[in-house]
């Protein structure tokens, strides 16, 4: 099984996210970068499939050179190689362009399966996985919590509101991950040592045959960013006993907040 994992480097959730002076981008100087949590599920599942069926796992990413360090964690988990598209011309916020670039980066790989995170926890856009599948003309299933592969087909359990739907697709296919798919393994010391020797090919857009002028200019533009309104200072409910506090809370919810 030749498996591709789409990986994005994102700020760790604990990072304080601050708006840059231009008012429409994020300050990245003090950010701790991690593998997008949903892509970590993807890498883990790819490695498990490799362990069960044989084959290899290639991790593909787009970003600055330092992204290689983040990809190295996936190699330490058990992926075999990485491809990093590093080019200052890449507009990191245009999902369709990113999808086209990823497709060009993998065009020489005869893959059976692509696994992607359902979304990146910075953009929260849910776009790149399905877009890659569309451009490659392969089926995709999103938000998968369980998969089984046999006889050139993949059976996916996808999460929907109130339950799961089981869908069957022929390979090659793409699926995106949902929490519950697996628990990613911790990176071991031997894993990290092995990872240092695994190759990460760094490519420019020209290397992969993408002419930026052929990718239409982004039609989604961030014009500004702001912090959401903070909740006004909440009310701590005091009282002599748990009973009086509970009664006071219910009164406020009923009369003041009007939610019950």
């Amino acid at each position, binding site marked *: 099984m030749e498996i591709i994992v789409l990986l994005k480097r994102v700020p760790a959730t604990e990072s304080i996210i601050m708006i840059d002076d231009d008012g429409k981008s994020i300050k990245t100087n003090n950010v701790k970068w991690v593998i997008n949590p949903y892509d970590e599920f993807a890498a883990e599942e790819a490695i498990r499939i490799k362990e069960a069926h044989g084959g290899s796992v290639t991790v593909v990413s787009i970003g600055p050179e330092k992204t290689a360090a983040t990809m190295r964690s996936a190699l330490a988990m058990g992926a075999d190689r990485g491809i990093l598209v590093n080019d200052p011309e890449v507009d990191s916020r245009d999902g369709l362009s990113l999808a086209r670039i990823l497709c060009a980066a993998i065009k020489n790989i005869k893959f059976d399966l692509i696994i992607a995170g359902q979304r990146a926890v910075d953009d929260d856009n849910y776009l790149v996985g399905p877009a890659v599948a569309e451009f490659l003309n392969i089926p995709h299933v999103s938000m998968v919590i369980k998969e089984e592969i046999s006889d050139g087909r993949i059976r996916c359990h996808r999460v929907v509101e109130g339950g799961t739907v089981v869908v069957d697709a022929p390979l090659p296919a793409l699926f995106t991950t949902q929490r519950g798919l697996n628990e990613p393994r911790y990176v071991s010391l031997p894993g990290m040592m092995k990872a240092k020797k695994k190759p990460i090919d760094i490519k420019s857009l020209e290397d992969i045959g993408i002419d930026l002028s052929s990718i239409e200019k982004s039609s989604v533009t961030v014009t500004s960013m702001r912090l959401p309104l903070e909740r006004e200072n909440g009310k701590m409910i005091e009282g002599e006993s748990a009973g009086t506090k509970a009664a006071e*809370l219910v009164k406020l919810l009923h009369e003041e907040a009007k939610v019950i």
Partner: protein
Amino acid sequence: MSKGVLAIAEQIDGVFRKVTFEALSEGKRIADQMGCELICLVLGSGMEDIAKELCKYGASRIMVADDPALKEYMTDSYVNVVDKIIAQEEPAAIIMGASTQGKDLSARLSARLNAPLASDCIKISVADGNLNATRPIYGGKILAEVALTGTPQIVSIRPKSMPVEEFSGKDAAVEKVNVDTGDICLKFVEKIMNTDQVELTEADVVVSGGRGVGSSDFAAIEELAAVLKGAVGASRSAVDEGWRPPSDQVGQTGKVVSPDLYFACGISGAIQHIAGMSSSKVVVAINSDPEAPIFSKADYGIVGDLHEILPLITEETKKI
């Protein structure tokens, strides 16, 4: 003169998801601003009569793509059918709910049509015939304003974030359209639904428990949720402990909920959890630790033992 706003309805087993009414209402507001019509597309099987229910949301036409092959949502057949309707109707904008179906369909459609997509929007406006949308990013820590250009433009809306508007006396023409599912290869195998539970992402009330619950004994949480006709949620800690299943998890890698009322019980308030519930209208925090960060994110707080306090809240609620 723009060609219209197309709202894509979503139904499960013949029942429209609530966000469909929200998408139609917002679609009508956008259409009014654009000076064009709102049209609606229903996909499913046996939906022709049921589709009439949508007449009161302001669409001038309701197209029904009715076929046994469309009974269950499958990405490829739905995208192919919607693609053909879009080629025929040439809408300026397409709107749908950002449900699991909507997120999936809008993404593949965006790539199919090379059309800009803003997903999970909480506010939409029109400027010079183009859509501007407000959408949460970084788990809701930042709100981004995005401007879309090109035709068509696709938006999906976060459930429970936009008001529903009904119009009395409005009559929409309901018409069956030809269904051509095109080349498809996905096969529906089965559907397993938790029919006895209120779905987290659609609940008006969510009562969540965290590490402070102390064990898998969530009875106090479940009873309050039941009395309020709400759903039970959990923090990642409770799920990691094995006390609740991953499908109950509210948070960055769990579900994002926007109920009118959210109870965070025994939950300290980690940023990843806040990412899942910050757009709740009213937040109540119950925690034995007065320093728990959750209190700064709540509208009301009680310091105390949730196993003692929740049953008392349940009792008080029954009296209303």
